[in-house]
């Protein structure tokens, strides 16, 4: 191969001189160097972040082959040595094909990192063999054109690799379209679209410009063709920042600062005077410092956001777990309660038989003990029933038997029932009814009675002196039952939990020990099934409490007398009156 042994050519030197004067060399610098650096930086950065990912390897290949091409092209433009020009020129064809192949590889493995089968690789690599093999021969470059300071190409060789490149380009397009169609989620679709557009833009401008410059000898195109890489890098940056593509965590701020630095850095190539240089350096430094702080604050923000997200994820998870646990617990209670009934029944039955003398006469002392046992056992049975009730309520399996009822009658009955308790404790129990009788309401009298009974019972229990008022009022469209006592009151912090399961305030444990703390919880869901509300008010500890039950005259939840429970467990009681 004849590379023309005249090493430094006058013509070339003058060519470059004229190029400088025409600003062509400036353009070469501007188009080649920053692009080359940017491509290499991006390729290595992403590769080093995740060296095992096939996609980042492919990207590195792409940026590397592109950089090499740019580098040799740059040499061709700036060199005056025919040997450098010729040898650089001879590898352009191969590098051109390498760019296409690595671009293909990239779109093929992105974003899932699934490598392509070996035989496809072989099939793709096969056509490159002649390109490599004939590169250093006259089949590639016929000779050196001293006049134009350029190599004379063999059009067969050039046509061959351009054709191959074109085929590869269409394969790439095909892959992108196929991948887009097969993508299962919108994020994947978007990523493929972005990469596809980026790669296509880059290759299109690269190939088109190369093609135009080759065939029409208009090499200026080539410079502009290189800007396709910049476009590609912009898409790449967006992919990385937005989708964490290539599994790289890069902040938008980082990418921006990096691009800015690069653009400003390019200015160094045009610094013609010291002043220019100092200004450039100063600007770069300023951007560097400002960028540093910007990135730091953004990174902090992002970190906080991520932490917050993690916390809220954890919280959601914990909440989910709690719900599961609560269900499991209710089921457990239901099963356990059922199992508990069997021995309780046996104890009750046998105790009664012994007490009745079925097994022979019982001495008074033993009888008294057995009486106590019998009563305690009944209490335990009741407790088990209460537990079962709660699990039934939670499973939404309580049935209501709604029937026309006068609340006043219920109130009177309860007043009678508790008169004695009150008297025993030297408390008053006063009932006050509305002057005009309330309309008959569709309620489940037993359930409502239970709720009222429970509250009155509590009121009496927790009132050391004074007494309890039971007031029934007409509240317009609803009946209001108020149970007001002069007792120990409710602490503000207890008020919210009062209607929860198994809750008894600390104060209450001191005075009475019986009761599982289910009453108010069960009562609340009973009242809610009537479309009503129940809540507690208190000025504070020692200042007495008021429990208010509101029941609408027309129960919105009644259809045909019997209804299934509608809202088993509505969230926390509203506190508009507290």
């Amino acid at each position: 191969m004849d590379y023309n042994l005249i090493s430094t050519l006058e013509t070339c030197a003058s060519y470059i001189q004229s190029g400088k004067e025409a600003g062509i060399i400036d353009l070469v610098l501007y188009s080649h160097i920053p692009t080359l650096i940017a491509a290499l930086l991006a390729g290595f950065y992403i590769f080093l972040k995740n060296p095992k990912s096939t996609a980042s390897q492919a990207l590195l290949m792409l940026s590397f082959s592109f950089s090499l091409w740019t580098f040799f092209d740059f040499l061709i433009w700036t060199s005056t040595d025919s040997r450098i020009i010729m040898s650089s020129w001879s590898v352009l064809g191969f590098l051109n094909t390498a760019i296409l192949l690595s671009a293909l590889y990239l779109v093929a493995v992105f974003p899932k990192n699934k490598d392509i089968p070996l035989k496809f690789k072989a099939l793709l690599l096969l056509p490159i063999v002649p390109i490599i093999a004939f590169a250093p021969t006259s089949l590639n470059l016929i000779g050196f054109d001293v006049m134009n300071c350029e190599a004379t190409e063999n059009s067969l060789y050039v046509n061959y690799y351009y054709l191959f490149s074109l085929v590869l380009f269409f394969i790439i397009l095909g892959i992108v379209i196929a991948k887009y169609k097969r993508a299962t989620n919108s994020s994947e679709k978007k990523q493929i679209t972005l990469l596809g557009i980026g790669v296509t833009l880059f290759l299109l401008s690269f190939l088109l410009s190369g093609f135009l410059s080759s065939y029409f000898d208009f090499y200026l195109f080539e410079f502009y063709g290189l800007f396709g890489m910049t476009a590609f890098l912009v898409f790449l940056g967006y992919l990385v920042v937005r989708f964490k593509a290539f599994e790289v965590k890069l902040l938008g701020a980082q990418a921006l600062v990096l691009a800015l630095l690069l653009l400003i850095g390019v200015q160094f190539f045009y610094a013609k005077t010291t002043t220019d240089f100092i200004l450039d350096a100063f600007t770069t430094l300023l951007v560097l410092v400002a960028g540093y702080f910007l990135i730091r604050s953004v990174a902090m923000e992002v970190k906080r956001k991520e932490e917050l997200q993690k916390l809220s994820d954890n919280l959601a998870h914990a909440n989910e777990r709690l719900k599961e646990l609560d269900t499991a617990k209710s089921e457990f209670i239901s099963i356990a309660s059922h199992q508990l009934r069997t021995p309780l029944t046996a104890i009750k039955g046998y105790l009664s038989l012994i007490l009745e003398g079925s097994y022979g006469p019982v001495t008074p002392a033993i009888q008294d003990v057995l009486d106590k046992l019998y009563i305690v056992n009944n209490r335990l049975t009741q407790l088990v029933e209460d537990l079962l009730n709660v699990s039934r309520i939670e499973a939404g399996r309580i049935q209501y038997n709604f029937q026309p009822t006068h609340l006043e009658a219920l109130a009177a009955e309860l007043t009678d029932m508790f008169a004695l308790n009150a008297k025993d404790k030297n408390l008053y129990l006063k009932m006050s009814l509305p002057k005009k009788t309330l309309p008959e309401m569709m309620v489940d009298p037993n359930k409502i009675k239970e709720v009222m009974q429970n509250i009155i019972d509590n009121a009496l229990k927790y009132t050391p002196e004074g007494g309890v008022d039971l007031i029934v009022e007409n509240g317009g469209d609803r009946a209001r039952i108020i149970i007001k006592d002069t007792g120990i009151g409710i602490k503000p912090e207890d008020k919210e939990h009062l209607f929860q399961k198994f809750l008894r305030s600390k104060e209450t444990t001191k005075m009475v020990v019986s009761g599982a703390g289910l009453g108010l919880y069960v009562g609340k869901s009973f009242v809610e099934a009537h479309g009503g509300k129940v809540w507690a008010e208190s000025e504070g500890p020692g200042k007495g409490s008021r429990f208010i039950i509101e029941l609408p005259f027309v129960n919105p939840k009644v259809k045909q007398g019997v209804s299934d429970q509608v809202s088993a467990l509505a969230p926390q009681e509203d506190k508009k009156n507290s």
Partner: protein
Amino acid sequence: MPKILFVEDDPFIAEIYKKKFESSQFDVINVTSGRAVLRELKENTFDLVLLDLVIPEMSGMEVLEELRKNDEYPKDIKIIVFSNLSSTEDREQCLKLGANGFISKTEFSPSEVVDEVNRFLRQFGEQEKNLARAGAPVAEAIEGQPSGKKRILIIEDEAVFVEMFSRRLRDEGYEVTSKPEGISGLQEAMDGNYDLIISDIMMPGMQGHEVIAKLRESEQGKNVPVIILSASVEEDHFQELTDAGIANKVFMKTQITPSELTYHVNDLLKAKA
């Protein structure tokens, strides 16, 4: 109608209890002092005396002592101490003096007191019956109808319940057979010509209500009285079973004693006869 002597000096409290007891078909005489108790008991007989410990003139303990020591009063007067004083010492003292039971005022609401009194009365009644049976067990069996003994089938998987309930039913003079699960229970009910069937609900093989439903379809089982005992049927479903003609009576196991079950059996068989 059980007759109670109720000793209570506070007219307000006395009135409340009197009302409660009377609404539960009791005959209540209220006296307010120790001497009045003694006077009343000399002249009238009562099924039960509810004795408060803190009363005017004499203390409850003194009244108790007098009643038990003085032969003028019948020995079999049933006395239940009904008081606020419920310390172990008080209870022991009362029992030593001859009280038959103790109801603590603070532990029970008025209606619960009525239930307790009922239980005591039933207990005393049963005790007497058991004593009588212990005295002449064989004679009664022969005197009753030896071949005409009513036959009851219990279908129940818990052996302890079979033992417990059938013991009481046998004491009452019934012949009791049992089956531990639904399928053989149904077979036995069809073939055995029983006077009454008691069945559990939750059982291996066939559920109790299915057994009874099948039985009702057959000629033999159409009219036989059925009592269902359950530990799982929720109250609201009780009515359905009786309404559907499946069972004559449904009870929660935890709510019924063997004697109470026996009374219901007696009632059903009496109604049939």
